[in-house]
C-alpha cells in the first residue's frame, strides 16, 4: 500500500528534467574534484535514480524519454537505462562507449547483489572496484553467462 501511494504520484516531465540536471551537476562535481573515489559522486545518484525507476517498472520508459529530451527528437535505439542516463548526463568526450558500458555493467551488478542499506561506493570497493564488478556482471549475468547456459 505504501509503495502504491508513491507509485501513484506521476513522475512528470519537469521532474525528469530536474533529475537529469541534478545528475549533470553531479558529473561537474566529479570532474572538479581530485578525490580518487570522486566517480561515486556521480555514479551514486545515477544508481539511485535508475534503481527506483526499475523498482516502479518505469526505467525503460524514462530512459527513452531522457534520450529523446537529449536528442531533441524521438530516438530509435535506446541503450539499457543505466547506459542511457550516463549518455544523457556525462560528457561524451570523457565517457566513451567502453567506459559507459563498464559503468553500466557495474551498476547492474550492484542492483542485483548489493544490500539496500550498503552505500554503492562501499559495495563496489568491497567487490574489487568498478572493473571487477563489470567483469562479474558479464560473467554471472551478462552475455557470457547466457552463452554458457545455452
Amino acid at each position: 500500500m505504501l509503495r502504491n501511494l508513491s507509485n501513484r504520484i506521476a513522475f512528470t516531465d519537469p521532474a525528469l528534467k530536474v533529475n537529469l540536471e541534478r545528475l549533470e551537476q553531479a558529473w561537474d562535481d566529479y570532474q572538479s574534484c581530485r578525490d580518487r573515489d570522486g566517480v561515486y559522486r556521480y555514479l551514486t545518484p545515477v544508481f539511485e535514480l535508475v534503481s527506483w525507476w526499475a523498482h516502479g517498472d518505469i526505467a525503460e520508459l524514462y530512459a527513452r524519454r531522457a534520450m529523446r529530451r537529449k536528442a531533441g527528437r524521438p530516438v530509435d535505439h535506446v541503450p539499457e537505462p543505466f547506459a542511457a542516463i550516463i549518455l544523457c548526463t556525462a560528457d561524451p568526450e570523457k565517457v566513451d562507449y567502453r567506459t559507459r558500458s563498464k559503468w553500466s555493467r557495474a551498476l547492474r551488478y550492484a542492483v542485483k547483489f548489493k544490500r539496500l542499506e550498503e552505500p554503492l561506493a562501499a559495495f563496489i570497493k568491497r567487490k574489487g572496484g568498478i572493473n571487477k564488478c563489470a567483469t562479474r556482471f558479464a560473467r554471472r549475468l551478462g552475455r557470457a553467462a547466457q552463452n554458457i547456459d545455452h
Partner: protein
Amino acid sequence: MKFRIDKALQQYLDEALDAARLKRNGVKRAQKAVFAEILTKAEAAGDAMRYLDAEGRIAWKATPRLREVLADLEADARADDEHEAV
C-alpha cells in the same frame, strides 16, 4: 498508511501543507491528495527526490540542493540568535 519521508524534507513539506491549508478557503480535500500534490510540485522543482530505502520501498528525501538551502537558513537563524544574545 503514509509516505516515507526524511526529516529535512518533512519540515519543508509541513510548511507547504500549512500554506495549502491557509489557501484552501474552506474547500476540504483529503490530506493525502494535498500531500501528493505538494510532493509532485517539490519533485518537479528539484526539492524532493524519490529513492529506494533500506527496505526496498520507494521513499522521499530532500535533494542535495534543498539540503544546502536548509543548512544556509539554519546557519542564518543561528547567527541571528547569537547576534541578539550579544
